[in-house]
């Protein structure tokens, strides 16, 4: 069956169990993402944003509902997906080169063509000279760029980004946003970004999904106007349409 959607999430519910209790993290979540679209999920801590990403990535099985990637049900980790976390997770004992090869090694795709593709990505993020460095020799922004290269090296069609820039200072954050948008539009990838940062949400997203409550539910989904969508992240922040949308999002997130 051919599906027009890259990601479909239907009536998704997930609970964490302990001996004494069941904690419902998210309840009846339904949304879909078109190929090439950039969806941003915002909401307060503990509303289950990250849980949704882990479930789509197939890290652990969901309690009920359905997740489809290009029409196929998620039953575990898939090669179609690249997952990036706030913690860069670079392995201290591997050089930058070893780190960007990790995903390729695990998926047994480490042919010389794939390895040189990874090297080329590293050059595109401006870190070609750090190939033989260890992660401890890099700054936070550089580490996150290496993590981005590691994620893209396996050529995933869908990128799941769990607050990848929240630990960075504003300058690095803006640069990385620019870089991410450039790489994603160039390679026509589908992406879901989870963030706390409403400005970042507007700057990067085509649509913004606001979540809230406990268990987490969808509050509302906003379309980012065409006028902002085609601007670079840096320029979006200066556009006259930026502020009104920010206020709307803010009210929705703050609503009890």
């Amino acid at each position, binding site marked *: 069956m051919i599906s027009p959607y890259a990601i479909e999430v239907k009536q998704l519910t997930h609970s964490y169990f302990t001996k004494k209790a069941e904690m419902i993290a998210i309840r009846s979540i339904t949304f879909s993402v078109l190929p090439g679209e950039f969806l941003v999920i915002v909401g307060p801590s503990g509303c289950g944003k990250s849980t949704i990403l882990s479930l789509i990535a197939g*890290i652990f099985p969901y309690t009920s509902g359905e997740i489809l990637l290009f029409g196929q049900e998620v039953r*575990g980790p898939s090669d179609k997906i690249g*997952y990036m976390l706030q913690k860069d*997770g670079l392995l201290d004992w591997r050089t930058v080169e070893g780190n960007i090869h990790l995903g390729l090694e695990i998926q047994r795709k480490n042919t010389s063509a794939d390895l040189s593709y990874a090297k080329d990505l590293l050059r595109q993020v401006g870190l070609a000279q750090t190939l033989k460095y*260890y992660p*401890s020799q890099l700054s936070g922004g550089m580490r996150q760029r290496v993590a981005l290269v590691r994620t893209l090296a396996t050529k995933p069609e869908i990128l799941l980004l769990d607050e990848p820039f929240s630990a960075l200072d504003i300058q690095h954050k803006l640069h990385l946003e620019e870089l991410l948008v450039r790489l994603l539009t160039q390679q026509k990838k589908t992406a879901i970004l989870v963030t706390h940062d409403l400005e970042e949400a507007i700057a990067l997203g085509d649509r913004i999904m606001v979540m809230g409550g406990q268990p987490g539910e969808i509050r509302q989904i906003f379309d980012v106007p065409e006028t902002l969508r085609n601007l670079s992240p840096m320029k979006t922040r200066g556009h006259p349409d930026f502020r009104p949308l920010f206020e709307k999002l803010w009210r929705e997130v703050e609503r009890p």
Partner: protein
Amino acid sequence: MKKWLKSAWFEKGAISPAHAHYLRKSRLTQLWVWLLRFGILISLIWLWEWSTDSGILDPFLFSSPSRIWQLTSQLASSGELFHHIWLTSWETIVGFLLGTATGIALATLIWASPFLSQVLDPYLVVLNSMPKVALGPLFIVTMGAGFGSILAMAIAITVIVTTLVIHSSFQGVDASYSILARSFGASHTQIFLKIIFPACIPDMIATLKVNVGLAWVGVIVGEFLVSKAGLGYLIIYGFQVFNLTLVMVSLFIVAIISTVMYQLIAWLEQRLLRYRLVS
């Protein structure tokens, strides 16, 4: 002397007057550290020699540096000493390598199966709190009074603590590493080989360091119990015939060899953990 202290050697390699001042100060400190280290050693040896010579200490009980030196060179020239050293070192090295490797293998097994880990938990706790030396008689009746029993003692004393430490180290690996590997579709085995095991190499080297010391305990006690050769045997034999000089000779040799082994592992650690040193 004074002239030498003012010499240019202390400022060799300086790139500015302030740097020269800094170099002079730190090299002088270093010099003092070494002088005092040797000073303490030499005065202790001298004090020992003098007090046994003048009759304050009984040389029959406390031996003396000159007697120890004489006996050492006598045993060394007959070649007998090297036989004992070789035997004990061999037992220790084999024992601690086998003990550590078995411990890591066991830890891997119970990491791979949380179910097995739960089942074996009480056994590990009991075995860990058990004084392993007390198992000596059991080893002797099953493996005979010889190499096997001594090795078993060294392994018994190292294996359980290694299992416990390495297993908890496996479990302590940052969960985001495993999530990352999972997101690439890594299997259980791949996660172990690419993430968990390499992440724990520093802890494994730390257990190697502890295990060298423990294996020495196992081997020496083992030799006390059964052996007809080795440094532990020399100690217990020297004690039985009341030749305390022989005991002292053996103790010094044990101290030297165990230090050398420890340093070898420290060197290995530096080689393997280079990624930690660069920054």
